[in-house]
């Protein structure tokens, strides 16, 4: 009987708090959104289940949670806390990305640059609210709309905020079809939304092979902090475009990226224990995250309108395409296509929008490298 009653005190039910219960409900909601609504299921389902697992109260003396040294979850979480998983995901992204739309209309790359204003204005906003500069940098990167980059920079600058930042980044990426369209309609006129862009030119295989090497050298020499993310992105792309390492590229964009996504999503979810996640700081992070997405969308849109002042005729850019400068690939480009087709069903903007979309991936990685260099060194 004594043994049984002492066992009862070690069950999770005796140490469950309201915070843990709330987080378990949130995890289940994430799972439901993934399965029922099909909102980013590859991310939300592992994260959601991780949240449920991470909020089962653990017994002192038993090494079980991500924060307990020597536990299985802590070993899986090493890839997050040491910034290993994000570059590996970028390898897979590079192996599945086609840069030819960007190569055929290079001026659209600048829209990807303009959208990174969301990162830096959010950085200022986080400082205003009292966050330390390193914390503000980690929060600002949510505006890049790039989950792996957000996790990579948070692990370096503000590991204690990683859970909230990762959940905010991936949640808002899933909400791109909800957040972006109203901003796109407010900031553009009907005439602008009807602009039809010139068809992209054919891009030779040589261009597609040389581009990743040249682009990597430029980005890495200017912002060395981005060398890991950008390097893996373009390494994956070169494996794809060279056509001599198809097996490796195939593995990178299928099994490899899937394995890393599972481990990253699950361990990030498991790190969001109620004690570390349910804080006033997390609410502020969520609020700043929404702001950063909105500002990034607006930044790309407004820069496209600015570029149109200098462009004529069929070279004009449909400003909707600027909204794809956030690096939520390819959801943002799909949203541009959808909003454009609501005005004109014969206006196909998807391939044009992919150019700033993939440029945004490069831009957010460079911005992360800059913030790392400036805020740590």
């Amino acid at each position: 009987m004594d043994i049984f009653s002492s066992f009862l005190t070690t069950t999770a039910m005796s140490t469950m708090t309201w915070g843990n219960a709330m987080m378990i409900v949130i995890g289940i909601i994430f799972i439901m959104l993934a399965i029922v609504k099909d909102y980013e299921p590859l991310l939300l389902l592992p994260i959601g289940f991780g949240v449920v697992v991470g909020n089962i109260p653990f017994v002192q003396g038993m090494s079980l949670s991500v924060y307990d040294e020597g536990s299985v979850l802590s070993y899986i979480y090493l890839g997050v806390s040491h910034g290993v998983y994000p570059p590996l995901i970028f390898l897979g992204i590079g192996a599945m990305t086609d840069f030819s739309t960007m190569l055929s209309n290079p001026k659209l790359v600048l829209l990807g640059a303009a959208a990174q204003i969301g990162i830096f204005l959010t950085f200022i906003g986080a400082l205003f609210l009292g966050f330390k500069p390193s914390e503000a940098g980690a929060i600002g990167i949510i505006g890049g709309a790039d989950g792996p980059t957000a996790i990579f920079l948070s692990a370096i600058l503000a590991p204690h905020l990683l859970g909230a930042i990762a959940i905010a980044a991936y949640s808002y990426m899933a909400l791109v079809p909800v957040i972006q369209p109203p901003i796109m309609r407010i900031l553009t006129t009907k005439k602008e939304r009807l602009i039809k862009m010139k068809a992209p030119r054919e891009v030779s295989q040589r261009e597609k092979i040389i581009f990743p090497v040249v682009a990597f050298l430029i980005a890495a020499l200017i912002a060395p902090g981005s060398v890991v993310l950008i390097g893996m992105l373009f390494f994956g792309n070169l494996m794809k475009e060279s056509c001599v390492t198809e097996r490796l590229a195939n593995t990178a964009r299928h099994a490899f990226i899937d394995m890393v996504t599972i481990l990253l999503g699950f361990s990030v979810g498991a790190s969001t224990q109620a004690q570390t996640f349910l804080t006033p700081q997390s609410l502020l992070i969520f609020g700043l995250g929404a702001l950063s997405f909105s500002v990034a969308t607006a930044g790309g849109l407004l820069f496209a309108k600015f570029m149109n002042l200098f462009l004529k005729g069929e070279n004009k850019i449909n400003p909707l395409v600027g909204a794809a400068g956030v690096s939520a690939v390819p959801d943002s480009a799909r949203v541009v296509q959808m909003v454009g087709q609501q005005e004109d069903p014969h206006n196909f903007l998807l391939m044009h929008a992919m150019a700033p979309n993939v440029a945004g991936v490069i831009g957010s990685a460079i911005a992360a490298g800059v913030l790392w260099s400036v805020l740590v060194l």
Partner: protein
Amino acid sequence: MTLDINSGIKNIVEGQGVDIAITGMVIVFIALGLITLSIAFLPKILKIIAKVFPESATTGVSGEFAAEEDNVLAAIGFALHKRITKDPYAK
């Protein structure tokens, strides 16, 4: 966590927020601007290189994507066939 405007502005000044933001945006624009210029000049440089080392006739499309292109062509062909057989005089 301070929330009043004066201490908020003080936080931005002490954290060099505006300086870092402007520097960051300039660096991002310079990097992507240089990438834009390199992409714009690449076809011209390759044209010169092609005079010495001509590009081969095969497009070099990777196996998986070549198969996908074939599938797309097959789908288009099927759609056209269905349309034509439905209306033999359809253009």
